[in-house]
């Protein structure tokens, strides 16, 4: 895919043959990237395609296992973020890197306060003035003395962008590179417009790498687009004249093989309704929705981050309160806003944040698997070691968890095996409805297949499931039905029974 490089643009940063492996997964496989001066480069790919890992390698948080990085024609090694920023490369991540209790000003200049020192004393006035100067082009009204914790997500992002620019300016980078990791997901429309105004202005003195899911905004605002898929380069082309559909095709890939998701194991759901959602709504999160999930049915919620699908799932799982409507599981209505009531009612939740929310990492595999069924593993009123071991062994075998022993701590397992432990925990508990939040996030192909197998198997046994997946093809492949959400509303329902699967291209049009 050769493209003509305009003469005024020089390559600022180039990455070549970058490979990075994690235990069990190759996150990046000989990926190359060129960032040119005065451009906005769109970096696109589905979740798990390797965008974040690539970013982290570029700014030195990770080191590449293979490959080289060139800066203005010289090979460089990035030793951590502060080294990268001195070379003129900085990133703004979704999770943010601002210290919440410090003020905007302090965060802006943290660790680089030398300019504002007078006899060892910080000049607050000069710092604040400088902060205002930096934030002025950002076009937002921020009280620079307010603690960052009190800012909106948009404002935080602006502050971070300003920090990266200021630092690269300070270290004399003629054309700093700012990497923005999905900046628009937390923004509303007008904020998003403002952001692009600013980025377009910034382009005059910097290069911007813009990572996003929303193809529309990428195509509208970026000069060039790079698509990553499964840790590999797919394409690198200018956006001028590019159609969304072309990118969509690239994005979902060519190797769309029919049975990757074990579709031949998909069965029609049974008649009884397991979960009934009636006019459930939560102000500011999602409009009232109604749908049923039948026994053994897999429903996929499709939509962008911010479409309201996460909040919907959290409400069903009892992790959040909802305002209106009701949830009925197997004919009973668990008390709303109580995760305990939901679990007792038979609703399980496999969270996206495995390590933070899914596992007790320092406890053993057996402990984690058995956690929900301890009451059933009792002998004479006491938890029996023998039954515990039997149960854990059975499920380790059932779910093919690869672990040194059932007594090993979960912290030492790979992501895929951790996920299998979480699945075992829920599946063994007699759950009626399982919410799977990105069940294959960050795990390798082999483990993914295992997860698919488990999903099929337990759907067959009558467990209803609501899934949210990393890729649309996964959604389509796994689901019996797809529910599409956009801008906090349920906008459509698509049948995805075997033989009637929609194409990802059809679906993506609805989503974005």
């Amino acid at each position, binding site marked *: 895919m050769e493209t003509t490089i305009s003469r005024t643009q020089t390559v600022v940063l180039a990455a070549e043959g970058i490979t990075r492996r994690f235990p069990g997964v190759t996150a990046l496989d000989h990926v190359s990237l060129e960032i040119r001066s005065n451009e906005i480069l769109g970096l696109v790919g589905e979740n798990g395609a390797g965008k974040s890992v690539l970013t982290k390698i570029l700014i030195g948080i990770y*080191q590449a*296992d*293979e490959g*080289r990085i060139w800066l203005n024609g010289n090979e460089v090694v990035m030793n951590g973020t502060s080294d990268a920023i001195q070379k003129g490369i900085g990133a703004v991540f979704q999770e943010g890197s601002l210290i919440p209790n410090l003020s905007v000003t302090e965060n802006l200049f943290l660790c680089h306060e030398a300019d504002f020192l007078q006899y060892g004393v910080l000049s607050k006035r000069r710092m604040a003035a400088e902060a205002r100067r930096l934030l002025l082009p950002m076009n937002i009204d921020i009280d620079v003395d307010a603690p960052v914790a009190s800012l909106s997500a948009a404002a935080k992002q602006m502050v971070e962008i300003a920090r990266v620019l200021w630092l690269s300016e300070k270290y004399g980078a003629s054309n700093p590179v700012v990497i923005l990791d999905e900046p628009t997901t937390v923004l509303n429309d007008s904020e998003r417009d403002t952001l692009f105004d600013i980025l377009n202005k910034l382009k005059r003195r910097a290069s911007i790498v813009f990572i996003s899911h929303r193809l529309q905004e990428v195509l509208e605002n970026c000069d060039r687009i790079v698509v990553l898929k499964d840790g590999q380069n797919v394409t690198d082309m200018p956006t001028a004249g590019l159609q969304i559909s072309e990118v969509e095709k690239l994005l979902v890939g060519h190797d769309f093989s029919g049975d990757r998701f074990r579709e031949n194991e998909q069965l029609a759901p049974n008649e009884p309704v397991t979960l009934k959602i009636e006019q459930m709504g939560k102000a500011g999160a999602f409009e009232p929705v109604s749908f049923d999930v039948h026994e053994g049915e897999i429903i996929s919620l499709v939509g962008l981050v911010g479409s309201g699908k996460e909040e919907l799932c959290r409400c069903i*799982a009892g*992790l959040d309160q909802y305002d209106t409507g009701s949830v009925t599981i197997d004919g009973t209505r668990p008390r709303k806003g109580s*995760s*305990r*009531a*939901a*679990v*007792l009612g038979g609703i399980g*939740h496999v*969270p996206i944040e495995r390590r*933070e*929310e*899914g*596992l*007790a*990492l*320092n*406890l053993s595999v057996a*402990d984690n698997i058995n*956690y*929900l069924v*301890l*009451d059933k593993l009792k002998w004479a009123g*006491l*938890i029996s070691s023998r039954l515990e071991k039997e149960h854990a062994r059975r499920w380790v075998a059932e779910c093919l968890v690869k672990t040194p022993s059932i007594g090993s701590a979960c*912290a*030492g397992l790979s992501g895929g095996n951790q996920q299998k432990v979480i699945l075992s*925990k829920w599946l063994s508990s007699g759950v009626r409805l399982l919410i799977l939040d990105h069940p294959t996030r960050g795990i390798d192909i082999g483990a993914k297949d295992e997860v698919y197998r488990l999903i099929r198997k337990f759907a067959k046994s009558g467990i209803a499931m609501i899934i949210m997946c990393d890729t649309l093809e996964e959604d389509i492949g796994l689901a019996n039905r797809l529910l599409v959400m956009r801008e906090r509303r349920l906008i459509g329902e698509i049948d995805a029974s075997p033989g009637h699967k929609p194409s990802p291209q059809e679906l993506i049009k609805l989503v974005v």
Partner: protein
Amino acid sequence: MEEKPRERVTQPDVRKAAMRLIGRVKPVHLTIVLILVVGTFMSVGNKEFLSLYNIDTILSFGAILLIAALGQMFAILIGGIDLSVGGTISLISVMFVFLVHSVGYWAYPICLATGLVLGYINGVILTRVKIPSFIATLGTGGIITSLAYVVSPRPISAASDDYGYFAVVNGSVWGVSNVFIIGLVTFVCILAFLRFSRAGRNIYFVGSNIKMAWMSGTDIAETRNVAFMLCGLCAAMVGIIISGVRYGGDPVVGTSYVLNSVAAVVVGGTALTGGTGGVVSVLFGTLFLSLLDNGMNVVGIDQYFQQALLGVMIILGVAVTFDRTKTPVIK
């Protein structure tokens, strides 16, 4: 270009192998090594250290600290701390003497129930009022201490007619003192509770990952309340035992148990962040401190120097046994 990646690959492998080896050694093993070292040193210093009489001494006094530490362990397991155990011990110790005089054996259940209630109050302040346990128990500790003074502003001695009621604590069975037996039974009960009951397991899960426990439908508030109630119960037991041993109560007697109990738990290798460790670690941690305390006297280390040495040994003990792999940020 060719070599670089290989270096990067091999180096972690060697380290990984070493880490795996180290990973097998649990904190409690290191505590045992420490105990053996200290024990050997002491018994070389004075062979009377290992006489039956002295072993009985170590065990029966160690048992009191053990019970206090086991209680503290619950608070620490769920990721909190209980600084009010001192107050509870003091209050129960004076209350018990009064109660024995007026209601006889009923004093035992009443005092234990009081411990439970005090623990429950701590739990509620943490779970409902949502005040960090450090502050909450620092505050309730002061309040309970005042209550102890209300019950009796000065140490009181039991009337000699009531001595019979104290036999539960003071007697011995086949030469083994009851205090030691009580300690052992408590140890076994708590071991069993954590091992064999749902509520016990919940304590670990809440301490290890409170968010996960909550999302899995665990009643967080109840679990934490139970942990603090058990802590209060253990403190009440210590209060009763102290009253029993002394045939009298004292409104300040608990003070020294606050930090000592935390020290015993932590020296055993339990992190203050919660979710790790257990009764066995606490047992060995307590044994370590008791051996030191007793041994320094038996060996005849200058009284003026013992306090300093104890401090050094605690730091050393924690430095050796503390499992840093589980806590990336050490506060």
